C-alpha cells in the first residue's frame, strides 16, 4: 500500500507527510512545489513530486502499480462569495481530484477527502453532527459540497472505499495568518488591545492541525469509511480566544469590544469520530495558541515540523 497525498505542502500536508512516514507508510507527496519543499527531507519512503492538479496533461502517476490510497488535501482557500471564482476553486478541488482518481482507478482502493465544517453553513442547532443538512454560504464551501458529492459518486461506482473528514477551523504551523486568532496574537505581541468586532460571545471550534493529522492517521490505520466531523470537541467564544492570546503573550491588556456584527457560531459534534475512530483531540487551545505564539514571535522557534523549507503553497 502506498499513500498519495495532494496538497502535500499545505497546512495539513506538511504535518501529515512526516507523520505517515513515521508510521512506516510509503508516501507520494504531490504539490506544485513538493520536490523543493521536501528537498531537505531525505527519506527512503518519501517520493515528492511537483504536480499541478489543474493541468490537463497526463497525471504522470502511471508507474504506481500496487494498491494506492489517495488523501485529497489540495484546495484553494478563501472566504469569497464571488461566484465567478467558483471555477478556479473547482478546477483544483473538484475537477483535479476527479481526473486524478480516474487516472489511478485501476490501483486505487481508498480515498480520504478533507472537507470542511463550512459545508453546514451556520446551523441553528449546535453542536452539528454529520446528518445535518448541507447549506454552503461561500464559494469555498460550495466547492467542498460539490467535491464531496462527486467523489462519493465516483467511489460508489468504482468500488473505492471513501472517508470524508469535515474539519473545523484549523490552526497550526503553515496556517495562513488571517482570522481572529492570528490578528489577536499579532496585536498582543505588539502590545495593542485585540479588537473584537462581532458579538464577543459568538463561538468557533478551533482545531490544531496535529489533531487532524491524528484523525487521518486513525482512518488510514483502520481503513474507515464514512463521514466524520473532526474538531476540538468544544466551542470557544471569541472573547475567550482573545483572552488566551493575551495571556500567552503575557500582555495585561483587555480586549477592545466593538460589536458591529452579531457573529456566527460553529461547533462540531465529534461523537462519531470518537466512537468509530477512537479520535480524541489532544491539543488544548491554550497550549495550541501558545505554540503558535512561540512559533511566530519567539526567537527560539519551536518548529513542530523540523524540515520546513521552501514556501508553502497558496
Amino acid at each position, binding site marked *: 500500500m502506498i499513500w498519495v497525498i495532494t496538497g502535500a505542502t499545505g497546512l495539513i500536508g506538511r504535518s501529515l507527510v512526516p507523520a505517515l512516514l513515521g508510521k512506516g507508510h510509503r508516501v507520494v507527496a504531490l504539490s506544485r512545489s513538493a520536490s523543493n519543499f521536501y528537498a531537505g527531507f531525505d527519506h527512503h519512503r518519501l517520493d515528492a513530486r511537483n504536480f499541478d492538479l489543474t493541468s490537463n496533461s497526463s497525471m504522470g502517476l502511471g508507474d504506481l502499480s500496487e494498491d494506492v490510497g489517495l488523501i485529497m488535501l489540495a484546495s484553494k482557500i478563501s472566504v469569497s462569495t*464571488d*461566484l*465567478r471564482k467558483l471555477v478556479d476553486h*473547482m478546477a483544483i478541488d473538484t*475537477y483535479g481530484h*476527479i481526473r486524478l482518481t480516474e487516472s489511478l482507478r485501476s490501483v486505487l482502493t481508498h480515498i480520504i477527502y478533507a472537507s470542511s465544517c463550512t459545508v453546514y453553513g451556520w446551523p441553528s442547532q449546535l453542536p452539528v453532527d454529520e446528518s445535518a443538512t448541507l447549506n*454552503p454560504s461561500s464559494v469555498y464551501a460550495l466547492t467542498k459540497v460539490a467535491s464531496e*458529492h462527486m467523489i462519493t*459518486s*465516483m467511489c460508489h461506482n468504482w468500488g473505492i472505499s471513501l472517508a470524508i473528514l469535515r474539519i473545523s477551523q484549523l490552526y497550526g504551523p503553515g496556517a495562513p495568518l488571517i482570522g481572529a486568532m492570528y490578528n489577536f496574537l499579532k496585536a498582543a505581541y505588539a502590545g495593542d488591545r485585540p479588537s473584537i468586532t462581532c458579538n464577543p460571545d459568538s463561538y468557533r471550534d478551533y482545531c490544531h492541525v496535529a489533531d487532524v493529522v491524528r484523525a487521518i492517521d486513525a482512518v488510514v490505520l483502520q481503513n474507515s469509511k464514512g463521514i466524520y466531523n473532526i474538531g476540538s470537541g468544544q466551542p470557544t467564544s471569541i472573547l475567550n480566544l482573545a483572552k488566551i492570546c493575551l495571556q500567552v503573550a503575557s500582555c495585561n491588556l483587555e480586549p477592545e469590544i466593538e460589536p458591529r456584527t452579531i457573529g456566527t457560531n460553529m461547533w462540531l459534534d465529534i461523537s462519531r469520530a470518537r466512537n468509530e475512530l477512537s479520535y480524541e483531540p489532544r491539543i488544548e487551545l491554550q497550549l495550541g495558541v501558545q505554540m503558535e505564539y512561540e512559533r511566530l514571535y519567539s526567537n527560539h522557534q519551536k518548529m513542530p515540523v523540523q524540515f520546513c523549507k521552501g514556501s508553502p503553497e497558496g
Partner: protein
Amino acid sequence: MSVIVVTGAAGQLGRSTVQLLQSQGMLVHAYDRVSSESLPFSHTLVDLANPRSDFYWPEETETVLHLAGSRDIAGFSSAAAQEMLDSNLLSTATALAACGSHVRRFVYVSSMSVYAADAPVPTPESGPTDPVSLYAKSKWLGEQACHVFQTANSAFQLTIVRLAQVYGPGSPDHLAIYKLIDQALRTGCMYLDCMPDLKRDFIYLDDAAIALVYAVQTCPSGIYNIGGGKPVTMQELADIVAASVASPATVSFGMKRGTDRALAADAFRTITGFVPLISIQDGIARDVEWYSQKHNISRGKE
C-alpha cells in the same frame, strides 16, 4: 422597458418559453451556447461555463430565467461528471454572478430529482433532498449556488422551481413514454425494465412553458414544485399508450425497483393559479403523432 433574460433559449423548453413570453408582450433577450437556425427568434451565443470575466446581463434586465443546463447522462464517468458540473453548476454560478447588482430577480429551473428517494410521495417543497444521479446532484448544486449568491445579496429575489419530468416534442427517446410509444408502434409488444406500479410525474412541454411564464411574472421568492397535476404509474402509462396507437399493443414489466417521483404542487397553484391544461392522455396522443413522424413510422398496422 424591462427585459427578461432567458438562458438555454435554444433548448426544448427554452424555445417554447421564449415564444410564450414574447406573445405576452414581454421583451426577451435569449441566450444559448449553441446556435440554431430553426429558432423563430434571435439569440446571443454565450458559453456560461467558460464566460468572459466581464460578462454581465444587459443593464435593463429585470429578471433572469435560467433554463440552461444539460440533461441526464446515463452511467458514470469522469467526463460525464465534468459535463454535468460545467453545465448545471458552473453555468448557474456565472448566470448569478452576471446579475451584478443591477438584476434583482432570478428564476432557477431545477428538477424533482433533487428529492431524497425516501421522501413522501407526492413530495412537498419541504421534503428532504438527497440527490443520487450525477444530473440530480448537479441540479441540486445549482440550487446551492443560488443560495450562496442570495446570502451575499440580501435584496436579491430568488425563485427556484423544481420541475416534474417534461415530455413533448424535442424530448429524448430514452424517456419511458417514448420507449413505450416506439415499441407499441413497431412491434405491439411494450416492455419496461421496472415494476408496473412505479409512479412518475410528467408535465407536457406546453404546460411547463406556461408554468415558467407564471413563475417569471408572479412568483415570489422561494422554492416551488411544478408538477403535471396527476402522477401516473408505468402500467397506466402503458395503457394510455396502447389506447393511443391504432394497432393493439401488450405490455410486460421487469423487476427493477425504481423511486416513485411525484410532486405536491399546491403552493405554486395557490400563488399563481397555474393548472396544467394537457392531460397525460392528450399529451401522449400528440406525442404518438410527433414521434411517428420524427422516426417515419406508420401509425397503423405495418
